[in-house]
């Protein structure tokens, strides 16, 4: 599987979407649209089949009732463009971008060129240069890194073998929807024993599709290989999409390592309903690092299935729920083999009427001898209007497994505030410093430029009047 030829020439074309104007977009979803979409993408028969079957599953599945029932019931599936957004829906000029978003860019000091892209005004192809350079390095290592649509065309064997195996379309309603209408996303294959030193970043691959509504990502880390992938960016992404529903599948083969970092900061009217799952084989390590700052409703529980002995899974999840936001995030660890270990750390901050929730599952199947798992959830509530929930599920069917869970919820300590304020900080400065300290475990896993931006963002979130994002 490692001997896939790489045709670099195709990559430069992979970014644009020349057929864009051929398809006249319409709202709502039916089989016809899916067939058309598949045809335009020149997909093989099996992919069309996959999509159509998934569409049926999507129709059959009821809306989940156990989370954010009220918000989810307001979601109108018929009011969404499932493929290619009409141009009139995107902000045409910088002037149309809401003032608070512009201010945020200003405060974060984001370069002018990037601002317009982030605001969805233009697709910024200049950045391809950055990406291209990155890719040449990777090519020498035999690493495949391209968008998913290209991968279906270029590496059909690899894709067909793994696509939809980690998260089958019937997994949940939104995974089914994504399977039916997916478009864009990343495909990564890291060959045996290859260590990718620098993080791969979706951030630089500036193309409208990568920030799409229904992106589909598949990462394959072969034996003994390692990779760190970063998705999203900390600056708020302005979009008029109502629904973002991605699926991310990862397979980490024996002794491989994969770290997947997400910083999600969609604007506040977005439903962010994402399914992320990884399989870790013998002695492999899978880490999900997941920060959620934006969106109106986020439902996301990155999970690791520990398939073979010695596999290790980690989730570090940070959520900031501000006014009008509901962050329902967490993690799932499923232990299927002996000597598997997992660690979940969750930090949530609720403010201004926001609702932060940790919802997690640790499941240890019978026979997973001496499996160990530890879950730690900490929550900060910053005012009386906000809400913090913790729903940790533990299902243990193995006697020798050692499982622990600890959680605390509190407000910012008076003594900490007093200490900082007596040293000349204002109350809001002191509070944001404490909050930044609270999530430091997350921040320190980030590359420096991300970490700095993230900290600034926390600070912005803390300022009463100018809440953004």
């Amino acid at each position, binding site marked *: 599987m490692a001997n896939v030829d790489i045709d670099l020439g195709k990559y430069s074309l992979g970014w644009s979407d020349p057929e864009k104007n051929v398809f006249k977009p319409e709202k709502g979803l039916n089989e016809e649209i899916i067939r058309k979409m598949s045809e335009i993408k020149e997909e093989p028969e099996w992919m069309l089949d996959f999509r159509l079957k998934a569409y049926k599953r999507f129709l059959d599945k009821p809306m989940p009732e156990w989370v954010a029932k009220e918000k989810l019931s307001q979601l109108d599936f018929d009011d969404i463009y499932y493929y290619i957004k009409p141009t009139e829906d995107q902000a045409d000029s910088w002037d149309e971008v809401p003032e608070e978003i512009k201010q945020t860019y200003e405060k974060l000091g984001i370069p002018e060129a990037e601002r317009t892209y982030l605001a969805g005004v233009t697709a910024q192809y200049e950045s391809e240069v950055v990406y291209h350079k990155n890719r040449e390095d990777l090519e020498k290592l035999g690493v495949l890194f391209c968008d998913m649509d290209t991968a279906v065309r270029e590496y059909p064997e690899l894709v067909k073998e793994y696509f939809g195996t980690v998260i089958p379309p019937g997994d949940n309603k939104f995974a089914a929807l994504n399977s039916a209408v997916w478009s864009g996303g990343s495909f990564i294959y890291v060959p045996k024993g290859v260590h990718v030193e620098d993080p791969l970043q979706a951030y630089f691959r500036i193309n409208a599709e990568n920030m799409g509504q229904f992106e589909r990502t598949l990462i394959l880390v072969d034996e003994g290989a390692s990779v760190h992938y970063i998705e999203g960016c900390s600056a708020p992404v302005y979009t008029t999409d109502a629904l973002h529903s991605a699926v991310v599948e990862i397979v980490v083969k024996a002794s491989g390592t994969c770290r997947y970092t997400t910083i999600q900061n969609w604007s506040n009217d977005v439903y962010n309903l994402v399914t992320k799952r990884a399989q870790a084989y013998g002695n492999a390590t899978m880490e999900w690092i997941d920060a959620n700052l934006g969106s109106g409703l986020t439902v996301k529980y990155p999970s690791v299935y520990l398939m073979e002995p010695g596999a290790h899974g980690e989730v570090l999840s940070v959520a900031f729920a501000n006014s009008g936001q509901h962050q329902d995030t967490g993690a799932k660890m499923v232990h299927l083999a002996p000597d598997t270990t997992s660690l979940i750390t969750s930090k949530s901050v609720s403010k201004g009427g926001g609702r932060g929730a940790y919802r997690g599952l640790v499941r240890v199947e019978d026979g997973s001898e001496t499996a160990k798992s530890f879950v730690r959830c900490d929550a900060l509530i910053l005012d009386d209007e906000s809400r913090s929930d913790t729903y940790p599920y533990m299902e*243990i069917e193995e006697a020798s497994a050692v499982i622990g869970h600890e959680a605390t919820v509190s407000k910012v300590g008076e003594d900490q505030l007093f200490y900082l304020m007596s040293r000349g900080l204002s109350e809001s400065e002191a509070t944001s410093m404490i909050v930044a300290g609270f999530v430091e475990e997350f921040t320190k896993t980030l590359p420096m430029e991300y970490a700095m931006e993230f900290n600034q963002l926390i600070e912005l979130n803390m300022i009463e009047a100018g809440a953004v994002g």
Partner: protein
Amino acid sequence: MKNKLFEKKLKSLSSKDFKNITAKDEDWKYLGKKIFELNDIEIGKSSDIEASKTFDIDSNCFTYEINSEHDHIAIVNIDEVKKPLIKESIKRPFDKFNIEQFEKVTGGFQLNVKGDSEQYFSVNFQSADNAIPYIGISVDKNKSGKLYLNFDQLVNGNIYPIIEIFLNDNSNLEIILSVTSPKGINIVNSLYAQLEKDSNLTIHNISTGAALSRSRMDIDLLGNGSEFSLDGVYFGEETQIHDNRVFVNHLGKNTSSNMITKGVLGDQSSSIFTGTIHIAEGAEKTESHQENRNILLSEEATAQSVPNLEILCDDVICSHGSSVGPIEENVYHYVMSRGIKKVDADKLLIKGFFNEVINDSKWAKVHDKVSEIIDRKYMNLIGRKNG
């Protein structure tokens, strides 16, 4: 038989309007096939039980007549009770099972604590057939009482008690809820309590018997300064299921709750613990802690633990912890390096595990009994292991 006391409640609610309970319902999850039995409770043929026949109510070995008063405790048969004990205006969660309990109540009594009593008042339940007894308990202002609800002698017939508790201002109630009956029967109870200002409810929960022993507690801390505490032990062997669900609603200010439940599971037994601490908006200065610890002694035993928090207020101190695992290696090492055999070490460590709960002076009344049951159950496990 519909009881007059619940007429008002049942006017607006009927079990027919509720969906059948399934394994998907959060409150019934993990119970497996048992759920089918619970969807349509079958009451015994001789269900027109008179309270005095079904319940052997005794305190300090005396038998009391219903409708009598003793030790500052008044007991009234439910057929003669006019007013519901709890405030019906407070919204309380119901499901098909609860409502069916009220619809099919087979008898019961209301118990009113009018004066302070140091002694436990025991109620021994005996039943020859499936029954749904109602037990209403109220404590007057500034008074305190102790109650021992004993489900230890049920041999035939499942029992589905409804327990309602109302604590007036500054009152105190301590309850021992003991389920140690043989393993052939099911005991599924629904307990609901309302606590007024500065009142205090303590529940000691013993669950070592029955095929299925489930208790669901909904506690509403209505008044400022009210307190709830729960400590419990369970020990499963063979295919026993011990299911404990505790939902504590902090509604008043300055309220506190403290829960600790510990269990050991052997053979194919399983345990479920679901606890939810809900702190309402404006319930300032709340302090709440919840703990659930499980030891699995057998390959086939399972434990599910779901300690939830729902917090809508910032000025709170809240924590929960839960764990599932075998006895720790280093602890074994410590004990065995002092010349104690593995079997004895196990026994000692299990005792020590439970002692955190049962060594409390409040457990004095049942300490010896529980201690003996733990020993016996452990010996049973060893006996079966060695064939």
